[in-house]
C-alpha cells in the first residue's frame, strides 16, 4: 500500500484515472448495467520466479490455480453452499474466466507459463519480482494479459496486487508459491487457490470489505457488503458483529476479507458490477 500511496503522490495521472474510474462506476451502479454481458476470458501469463527446486512449481500446480479461479469467478465453487442463508441470494457469477495464454506478445505459441531463475531467496512487496534488473521477470503487455508472478515472499506475505489505472510495467498480481493453486507445494490453510481469487479481485478494482480503516469510517464502495471494522482471520463463526452491522454482522465469507481459503466463498452482485465496470473502463482491452 505504501507503493500505492507513493504512486498516487508521484503519478498524478494515476490519481486522475482512479477518480475517473470511480465516477464511471458510480454511474454504472446507478444505471445497473454493464457494457459486457457475455463472459470475458482473461489471458493469463504466469511468471514462476524460483531459486530452489521446490519453488519451481509444476505446470499442474499452475493449472490448478486457473481451475480454482474459474470456479470462484463463475460461482461454480461447490462450497458456496456454506454461505449463510441470509446472503445466499447475493452470491453472484462474476462473468469472468481465465485461460493460460496460448500466444506470446510476438504471436508465437506459448504454454502461458514462464520459468525464470533468480538469486533472490524471497521478494519484498516492492514490485522487484517484476523486473529482471532486480531478480524478477518482466511483465507482458498489461493491455492484453493478466500477469501473475509466483515466488517466495518475505514477511510471511501471501500476495499483493495493483489496482486498475496504475503503471503498465508493474500491472498484475504477485502470489506466494506455497499459497498458489490447489496441489503441489500449496499448503493449508491456503491451499484452495483463494489468494489468487482475492488478488484478482483487487486487479478488477475490488476493495477489502472492512474499507481499509479500523474505526468503521472506511468503505469498499460496495452497497451490498455490510460495513466491517477489521479484517477477519482464520475460520470465524457466524455471525461476527462489528460497526453496528448486526444481526448478521461482517460478511467474512467474502473473497475480499482475510479469512482462510476454506472460509471465503463468494462475491456479491455489487462487487460484480464494480469488476465489470473495470472491464468496461481501464481494462477494456482485456479478453478482446
Amino acid at each position, binding site marked *: 500500500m505504501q507503493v500505492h500511496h507513493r504512486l498516487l503522490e508521484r503519478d498524478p495521472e494515476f490519481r486522475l484515472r482512479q477518480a475517473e474510474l470511480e465516477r464511471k462506476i458510480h454511474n454504472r451502479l446507478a444505471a445497473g448495467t454493464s457494457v459486457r454481458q457475455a463472459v470475458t476470458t482473461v489471458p493469463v501469463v504466469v511468471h514462476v520466479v524460483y531459486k530452489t527446486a521446490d519453488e519451481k512449481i509444476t505446470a499442474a500446480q499452475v493449472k490448478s490455480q486457473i481451475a480454482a479461479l474459474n470456479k470462484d469467478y463463475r460461482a461454480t465453487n461447490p462450497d458456496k453452499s456454506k454461505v449463510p442463508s441470509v446472503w445466499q441470494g447475493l452470491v453472484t457469477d462474476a462473468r469472468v474466466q481465465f485461460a493460460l495464454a496460448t500466444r506470446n506478445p510476438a504471436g508465437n505459441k506459448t504454454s502461458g507459463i514462464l520459468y525464470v531463475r533468480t538469486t533472490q531467496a524471497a521478494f519484498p512487496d516492492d514490485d522487484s519480482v517484476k523486473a529482471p534488473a532486480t531478480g524478477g521477470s518482466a511483465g507482458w503487455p498489461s493491455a492484453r494479459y493478466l500477469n501473475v508472478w509466483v515466488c517466495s515472499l518475505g514477511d*510471511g*506475505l501471501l500476495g499483493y496486487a495493483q489496482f486498475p489505472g496504475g503503471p503498465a510495467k508493474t500491472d498484475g498480481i504477485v502470489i506466494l508459491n506455497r*499459497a498458489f493453486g490447489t496441489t503441489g507445494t500449496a499448503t493449508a490453510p491456503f491451499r484452495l487457490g483463494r489468494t489468487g481469487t482475492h488478488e484478482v479481485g483487487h486487479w478488477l478494482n475490488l476493495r477489502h470489505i472492512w474499507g481499509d480503516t479500523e474505526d468503521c469510517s472506511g468503505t469498499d464502495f460496495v452497497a451490498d457488503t455490510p460495513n466491517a471494522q477489521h479484517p477477519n482471520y482464520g475460520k470465524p463463526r457466524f455471525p461476527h458483529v462489528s460497526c453496528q452491522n448486526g444481526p448478521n454482522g461482517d460478511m467474512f465469507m467474502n473473497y475480499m476479507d482475510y479469512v482462510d481459503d476454506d472460509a471465503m466463498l463468494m462475491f456479491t452482485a455489487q462487487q460484480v458490477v464494480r469488476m465489470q465496470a473495470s472491464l468496461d473502463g481501464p481494462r477494456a482491452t482485456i479478453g478482446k
Partner: protein
Amino acid sequence: MAVDTPREWLHQEWVHSHEEDRDDEMVFRPASFKFPPSRGRRSIDLRRDGTVGHARPGPDDRRQRSAGRWEIDGHALKLFPATGKTPAEVYRITSASPDRLVLRSG
C-alpha cells in the same frame, strides 16, 4: 502487570499474532517470532523516543506504514497520531512479557 515505567523490552516492534487472539484480546509477539504466512499483519514499533511506527495491510495487501507517538498511562497503552493530543487508539495492557504483549480495546 503495571507498566507505569515502560520496561526496556517493551521498546521493540510488536507484530499481531492474530492466530492467538481470544475474544476481545489481541496478542502481539516480537518481530523475530516465527509467524505462519498470513494475508497481512498489523505491527506497532514502540520506540524509546516516544514515537511509534505502524504497519498495516493496505488496500492492495502491501504493508502501509504510518508514524505517531505512544505513551503508557497506568495499564493503558495510548497511541497518538503524529500531530494532535487526542489518542487515536487506547488499549488496556492485560499482560506483558518480553515475548508476548496482550492488549484489550478500551
